[in-house]
């Protein structure tokens, strides 16, 4: 029988389920702080209860033992015996973290962190008012011996038993068939049952569903008392049940009515709490406190599971494959479209009709396939209640977290990559944005600060906003610092918005004291770079004293791009529409060549470095003269460049193909796509192009301005 193998498979389900259970516990505990409603505690309790039951069933005694304490505490809270204190919630949250680690370690068959487990166990016991010492370790052999003694009754059992069994009337109604019990007794030894029908009423008064009989049962054989108890366990209550040893003398016959104390199952449960190793609570605490202080929920391996609500788990690889195929289909369709342009005019209408249908179908197909990759942003948002809870405690701030638009869906890859920047922004808002309660009150604001995370769609993009009602950015200080660091020229005038967005510059931090919460100013520029890498855009707006809003704009997917086709000579390139600010005709008088070969173009009050794609990629343009071409103004990271092209062509959605996996990575190129006529067009890496041009150009532009 492949029992072990099968059980191992089922254990995997248990691990996954436990992680989901822990998520439920965590979010339940976090909302418990506000209102201790009984349904919530029940839910938390059930989750803990399932983890305990499952771990014990699958033989993870240490997980079961640890959860037992957690469950006991929750049970007392749920029954109103134990008050729901902030301390208890904090301990339970840490217990969730610890359990997550235990489960991850158990699954990976790694050793558990005994010190941490013992310490938290001690904390829980402390709350429960029990002695904080770890329970005296009961060695497994001792336990087994105890069981054996109870089971086998080695002390010398009697040669048989006389059992008096007077059941309650509803014995049969509950389907406790006496005949089945007798059959089991018979398996233990020779058995004779004498039915006592004296209580049987006259026929007309007889209720056929009731039991009127009682029995005297003689059973011979060396039978431990525990075996008999097991058989009568279910009917014990309400029945008159007497066991009298018969036959040989019984040296250690238990008193009638007493239950064997060490049934194997009961013993196993007691053993749960004993399994955890004894470690001195004080030294354990010291070692574990560092651990406990880590803010984020532990276990990077914790995989958020999709809920039970009719969802499926699909390997990303398979989905990518489908997406690729649909991309090909799109290409075929656009190939047919361009082919239709030169066909017999008589057939054109029908062909066009068919093609438009094909276009619609492929489009729909593509959209629905893309949907498979889409996940609600709640997968990223869900971790914030815990982060905010832990952090606000640590910073002694009062914070109310509001989430909205959790159901907004975005691409799995985008979702995964946006989570860390979001965490950073939230930590920043808590650390630097929101004030401590006294200062808020002094400023005439509500004591509790508000932090809002909102997600919504806007014109084919997804917008995520992180809003706080804190102090806002100190513009004067930012500007001063930016000047100190020569990020801004001394006489340069900046709008409020431009000043705010200086915080995204590399190496910028305004926190008076560097804290361990939100880092040392290496953060915001990294946040912006990560977001830009996703083809997104971030900006901050802030009102002093009223708070800040950080707005992140992200593409819905990384697989498709809204592109502008541009032509340089015979080559066609694609530029993301998101990067294009405007396109202008080049007037010679605004074009200046600076020292070296750098050209700049004066656009209103600004000097833009000019990037000639023909030079960049070594293609022969229509004309060497700049005023024959068009200047496409691109913006990324707050920097702008003008890109010189020969002509603008159509705008269309293109399917992005990786250049790196099909060829190799090329500077200035983000990828490739296949156009309707089957030719390959390269997609311009706008941020890359801009930053490399700006490096050469900014100095030049500044030199020119000065």
């Amino acid at each position, binding site marked *: 029988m492949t029992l072990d193998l*099968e*059980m191992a498979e*089922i254990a995997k*389900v248990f691990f996954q389920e436990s992680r989901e259970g822990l998520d439920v516990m965590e979010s339940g505990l976090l909302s418990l702080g506000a209102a201790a409603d009984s349904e919530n505690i029940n839910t938390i309790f059930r989750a803990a209860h*399932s983890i305990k*039951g499952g771990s014990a069933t699958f033989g993870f005694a240490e997980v079961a033992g640890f959860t037992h304490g957690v469950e006991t505490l929750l049970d007392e809270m749920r029954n109103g015996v134990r008050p729901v204190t902030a301390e208890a919630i904090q301990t339970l949250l840490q217990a969730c973290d610890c359990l997550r680690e235990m489960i991850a370690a158990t699954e990976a068959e790694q050793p558990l962190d005994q010190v941490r487990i013992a310490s938290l166990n001690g904390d829980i016991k402390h709350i429960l008012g029990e002695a904080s010492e770890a329970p005296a370790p009961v060695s497994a052999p001792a336990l087994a011996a105890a069981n054996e003694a109870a089971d086998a009754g080695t002390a010398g059992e009697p040669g048989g038993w006389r059992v008096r069994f007077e059941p309650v009337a509803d014995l049969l*109604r509950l*389907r406790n068939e006496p005949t089945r019990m007798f059959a089991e007794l018979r398996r233990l030894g020779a058995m004779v049952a004498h039915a006592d029908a004296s209580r049987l009423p006259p026929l007309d008064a007889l209720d056929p569903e009731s039991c009127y009989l009682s029995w005297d049962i003689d059973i011979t054989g060396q039978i431990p008392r525990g075996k008999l108890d097991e058989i009568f366990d*279910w009917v014990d209550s309400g029945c008159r049940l007497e066991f009298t040893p018969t036959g040989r003398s019984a040296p250690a016959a238990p008193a009638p009515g007493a239950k064997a104390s060490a049934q194997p199952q009961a013993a196993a449960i007691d053993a749960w709490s004993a399994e955890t190793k004894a470690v001195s609570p004080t030294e354990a605490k010291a070692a574990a406190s560092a651990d406990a202080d880590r803010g984020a929920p532990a276990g990077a391996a914790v995989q958020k599971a999709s809920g039970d609500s009719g969802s499926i788990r699909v390997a990303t690889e398979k989905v990518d494959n489908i997406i690729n195929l649909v991309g090909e289909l799109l290409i075929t369709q656009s190939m047919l479209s361009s082919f239709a342009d030169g066909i017999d005019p008589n057939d054109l209408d029908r062909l066009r009709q068919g093609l438009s249908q094909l276009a619609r179908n492929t489009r729909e197909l593509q959209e629905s396939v893309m949907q498979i990759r889409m996940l609600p942003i709640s997968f990223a948002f869900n971790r914030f209640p815990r982060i905010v809870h832990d952090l606000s405690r640590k910073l002694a701030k009062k914070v109310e977290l509001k989430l909205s638009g959790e159901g907004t869906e975005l691409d799995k890859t985008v979702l995964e990559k946006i989570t860390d920047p979001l965490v950073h922004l939230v930590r920043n808002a808590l650390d630097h944005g929101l004030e401590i309660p006294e200062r808020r009150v002094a400023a005439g604001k509500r004591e509790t600060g508000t932090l809002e995370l909102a997600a919504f769609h806007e014109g084919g993009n997804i917008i995520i906003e992180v809003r706080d009602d804190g102090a806002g950015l100190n513009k004067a200080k930012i500007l001063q610092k930016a000047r100190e660091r020569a990020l801004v020229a001394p006489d340069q005038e900046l709008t409020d918005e431009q000043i705010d967005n200086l915080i995204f510059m590399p190496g910028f931090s305004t926190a008076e004291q560097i804290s361990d919460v939100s880092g040392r100013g290496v953060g915001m520029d990294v946040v912006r770079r990560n977001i830009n890498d996703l083809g997104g855009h971030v900006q901050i707006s802030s009102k002093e004293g009223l708070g800040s809003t950080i707005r992140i704009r992200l593409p819905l997917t990384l697989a498709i791009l809204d592109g502008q086709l541009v032509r340089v000579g015979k080559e066609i390139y694609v530029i993301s529409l998101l990067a294009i600010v405007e396109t202008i005709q080049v007037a010679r008088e605004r074009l200046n060549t600076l020292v070296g070969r750098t050209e700049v173009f004066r656009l209103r009050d600004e000097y833009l470095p000019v990037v000639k794609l023909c030079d960049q990629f070594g293609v022969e343009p229509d004309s060497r003269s700049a005023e024959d071409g068009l200047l496409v103004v691109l913006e990324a990271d707050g920097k702008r460049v003008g890109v010189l092209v020969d002509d603008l062509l159509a705008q269309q959605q293109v399917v992005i193909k990786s250049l790196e996996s099909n060829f190799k990575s090329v500077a200035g190129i983000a990828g490739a796509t296949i156009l309707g006529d089957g030719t390959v067009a390269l997609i311009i890496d706008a941020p890359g192009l801009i930053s490399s041009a700006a490096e050469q150009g900014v100095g030049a532009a500044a030199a020119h301005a000065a």
Partner: protein
Amino acid sequence: MSKRILTVDDSASMRQMVLFTLQGAGYEVVQACDGVEALEWARQSAVDLVLTDVHMPRMDGITLVRELRGLLNYKFVPMLILTTESSPERKMDGKRAGATGWIVKPFNPPQLIATVARVL
């Protein structure tokens, strides 16, 4: 004909474990993930044994047993509650609701089969 067992548990791993064990022992198994689902199913179908967890969302196992006992075709069906609670009060709650008996978790597959065999 093989006996049919209705098992009710909100934990997927427990359901799988019970399913695997009972099917391996030759029983036909019907599953529900809480009391409400089980009761809904039971109103239209008959089984030879009900095996239910206690703590479940929507409707717990004790309530389920009580409700099922009220159904005509479940009047005499054996019902076992499957629970980690070894406390006498919990067992009595189950008993009062009409449970035939109980299985205390953790149990292993042979224990489950042996217990089921006591009533089927």
